Structure formats: C-alpha cells, structure tokens
C-alpha cells in the first residue's frame, strides 16, 4: 500500500476465491442431532409453502422438466407475458430471495387450492381408475357412474392405479396417462434441484381428516382404499419409492424430504379438530412403514421423513404404532409449543432442540388467491421467515434477511403464535 505521511489504513481489497467441484448439498442427513448437508454442513430449512403448485403450469414451454430446463420464465417477464406465470418463474424468485426449500403436495386437491379430483391445471391425473362400490362410510364410490368415469372428488381413486408400482413408471388406462402427471411432479423437483433447493414433498396430505365432501383432503382416499384392500395403499407407496428413492430411476430425487400428511392427528379423539377417525393411525402408519421399508432396500436412498402428526412435542401422537423407527425429523404439531415454529420443522427427532426454521404460513391460499405471489405486483413478497439458530455459530450464509412488504393480515396469526416472539 502507499505510504502518505501518517496514513495507516489501506483501501479494502476484495479477494475472489474459486471453489471447485460440485456442491454436496443433498440428500440431507442427520448427524449428531443436527440436520446437515451431504457434505456435513449444518442446514437450516428456510421454506416457502407452494402446496398447491399443481395450480400452475410448470413453465411457459410445457409441463415437463425437459421442456422447461434452460427456459427463461421470470417474475418480471410475467408482468407482460401471462404465459410466464409459471412454477419456474415462481421458484426462481424464491431462490433469489434466499429460500432453500419448498413444500409441495405431490397429491393435491381443493383443500390446498388444486383441482377437486386431484388433477393438475393442465388436466392430467395421478391415478387412472376409481374404486368399486363398498368403501369407507360415508363415501360412495365410484363417482360418475363407473370406475372409468372422471370423479368429482379425489376420494374414490384407486391408489394402486398410479402406474407400474414395481418400476415407478406411469401407465395409460381409461384415457388417463399418469406418466404425464408424474413428469410434472418430477419437474418441480428437478427445477428446484437445479437451483439448489430441496422439496418437502407431501405424498398424501390428509388435512381436516374428513371426507372431501365434508371439507377434507386425502384422508378418505386412504380409508376407502384400505377398506377395499390395504395393498392398494402400499402399491402407491411402492410407486413413489421406486420413482423418487430408487437411485437408478430417471426421476430419482436426492433433494427431497418426505413431509407426510400435514398437521391433523385424525386418529385422536381429543384432537382439537374434532374429526376423529378410529383406526386412522394404523392406516396412515401402513403407508409410513412401507415407505421406510422400501427405502431401506439396497440401491435406494433413505430420505429424511417428517410429519407434524408425530413428534416430540405432540401429545396427540399415535401410541399404537412405532413411528419413531420411521420418522427421522421431529415434526411440530400445529399451534403447540414449546418448540412450535409456525408449521414446519424444528429439531431432530429424539434430541434437544438445536435450531429452528420458520416456513411461510402453510399456504392453502398459495397461488390460488395470489396472496403469496402476486403476478401483478411482484414486489409483494412473502412474510419474512424468522430464523432461530441455537447452539451453532452463525446462520448459513445463504440465508439473509428478506424483503418484507406483505400485508400482515395473511400471516398475523403465525406471528402471534410464535412463542419466541413474545
């Protein structure tokens, strides 16, 4: 540096450091009670909640990863080109804001702002065929007069008609090509991966427990299929495991955590939601235990699993089945402390709390009402996730304070419930 008399401080010098090789983020793992990247770096989930992503085209160019990768949809472009109002534009924006995770219901219906019979916005279906008569009361199947008809709700789908359950590849029956549906789901996961984001994938949300005709979600598809044959449920389980967990699958997803069922303890008669379904715990657990067993096979990745319906702080957890052998991340029950975090993950199952993350509010309104992303006003952002980082030296550098300009009305309840806020 130059010496000018008593000048003693140099100008700042910025040094770029090139870091070679590939990032080893996924699959995430748990080690020493800490959620970590595959490379061993502590990982704080900072998630947005596009549960109803099926509401949107994957991108302007189509609904497959192949069609969308490398294309240019952006939030700003969507202002003048409605074709760019797509998942791709959305997720680019979220990545730019610093999010590292998105929660997507890979089966989705009207409870989370998707089509009532589980179809995508472009009219593809996850299943081909309905159940025949004789399902769980009060449902009546099939809807529309035959098992081949298009149902009005999702309750009557035969879960085993998802595709080839041994290979995880879709099939075409009754004019419905399920491979098109699942390629759309693949697209969410692969586009997220390209941007360094993981997907908290809910393979079957069971919000509100009730039959869909009474405001529920997929709880009764479980019950209806179980009444006909429990193997129909495990057939669906095998399909998703063979598609997303089998490492040789073209749809294999390393950037995935199973985020199971959501937040309704349907089996517990003291549940504040009041939609008690005797025996639902065992039906749900059949899915969980089969998924864990599938992923324990050689050649499969054992993804982390979590659910708000089972966790350390949830006194409504099922005590009949041994969920703790399957669930690897502690879930936090809806509106329950002391480690309530606004509806997503807190700490690792069976350990003392180490860190908290804060997702945006579970977004039933996501994209449906445009409260979370407003195409006409892209400056409107999601609520600022609150970050709690305990026992570790610093937040991940990728997570920075986010712009916060959204109206508090959509998120006020979340903030008021945050015990650490008080």
């Amino acid at each position, binding site marked *: *540096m130059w*010496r000018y008399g008593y000048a003693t401080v140099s100008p*700042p010098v910025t*040094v770029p450091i090139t870091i070679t090789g590939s990032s080893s*983020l996924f699959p995430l793992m748990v080690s020493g009670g800490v959620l970590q990247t595959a490379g061993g*770096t502590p990982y704080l989930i900072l998630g947005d909640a596009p549960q109803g992503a099926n509401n949107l085209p994957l991108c302007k160019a189509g609904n497959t990863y192949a069609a969308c990768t490398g294309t240019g949809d952006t939030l700003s472009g969507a202002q003048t080109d409605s074709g760019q109002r797509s998942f791709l534009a959305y997720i680019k924006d979220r990545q730019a804001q610093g999010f590292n995770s998105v929660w997507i219901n890979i089966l989705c219906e009207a409870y989370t702002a998707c089509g009532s019979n589980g179809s995508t916005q472009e009219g593809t279906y996850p299943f081909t065929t309905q159940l025949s008569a004789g399902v769980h009361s009060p449902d009546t199947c099939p809807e529309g007069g035959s098992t081949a008809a298009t149902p009005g709700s999702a309750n009557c789908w035969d879960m085993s008609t998802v595709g080839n359950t041994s290979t995880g590849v879709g099939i075409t029956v009754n004019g419905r090509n399920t491979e098109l549906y699942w390629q759309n789901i693949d697209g969410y996961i692969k586009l997220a991966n390209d941007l360094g984001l993981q997907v908290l994938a809910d393979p079957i949300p069971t919000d509100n427990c009730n039959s869909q005709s009474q405001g529920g979600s997929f709880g009764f598809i479980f019950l209806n299929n179980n009444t006909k044959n429990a193997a129909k449920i495990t057939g669906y389980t095998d399909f998703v495991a063979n598609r997303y967990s089998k490492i040789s699958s073209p749809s294999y997803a390393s950037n995935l955590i199973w985020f199971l069922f959501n937040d309704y303890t349907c089996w517990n008669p003291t549940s504040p939601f009041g939609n008690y379904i005797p025996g639902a715990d065992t039906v749900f657990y059949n899915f969980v235990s089969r998924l864990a067993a599938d992923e324990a096979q050689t050649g499969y990745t054992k993804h982390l699993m979590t659910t708000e319906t089972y966790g350390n702080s949830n006194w409504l957890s099922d005590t009949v089945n041994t969920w703790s052998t399957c669930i690897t991340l502690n879930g936090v029950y809806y509106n329950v402390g002391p480690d309530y975090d606004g509806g997503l993950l807190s700490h690792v199952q069976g350990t003392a709390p180490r860190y908290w993350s804060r997702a945006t509010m579970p977004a039933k309104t996501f994209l449906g009402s445009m409260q979370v992303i407003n195409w006409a006003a892209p400056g409107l952002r999601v609520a600022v996730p609150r970050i709690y980082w305990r026992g570790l*030296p610093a937040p*991940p*550098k990728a997570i920075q304070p986010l712009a916060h300009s959204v109206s508090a009305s959509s998120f006020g309840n979340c903030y008021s419930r945050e015990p650490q806020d008080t």
Partner: protein
Amino acid sequence: MPVTPASSPKGTVVATVRATWSDASQFTGTISFTAPNYGDSGTFALSGSNLVISSIGLGISGDGGTIQRVTLVAEQ
C-alpha cells in the same frame, strides 16, 4: 485468485495474506476483514498470515462451482 476444492476441510489454508508498503518499508500492522464481504459470513478466517476455512464456520462443501469473496484491509 485462490482456488480450493469444495471438499477442503475446515482449517485448510486458502491463501497467504501479505501487506507491503509502497516505499518497501516493513509492514508491522494488522490485517482484518472489512466491508463489503468481510470473511464471507464467517466461512473464512485469518490465522496469522493465512486465510483459512474457518474452523467454527459452516465450511465450503455446499459452495462447489462458485466464487466466494472476502474483503481485507491492512492497518498500521
């Protein structure tokens, strides 16, 4: 420009830092991080005259294929 693989463990020396006066006299002051990048949010640290991957930071395993930046200032 320093180059290091993403697999480098914490404590790895990334570069040696040296300050010199324009008149060739000996620099006897200190070197520290400053704005705008500081030590890349704690990822890097100064250890004597070495720029190292901080032993108490988050490491660089998630940074493969990127360029990270630190900003230094010398004071005497």
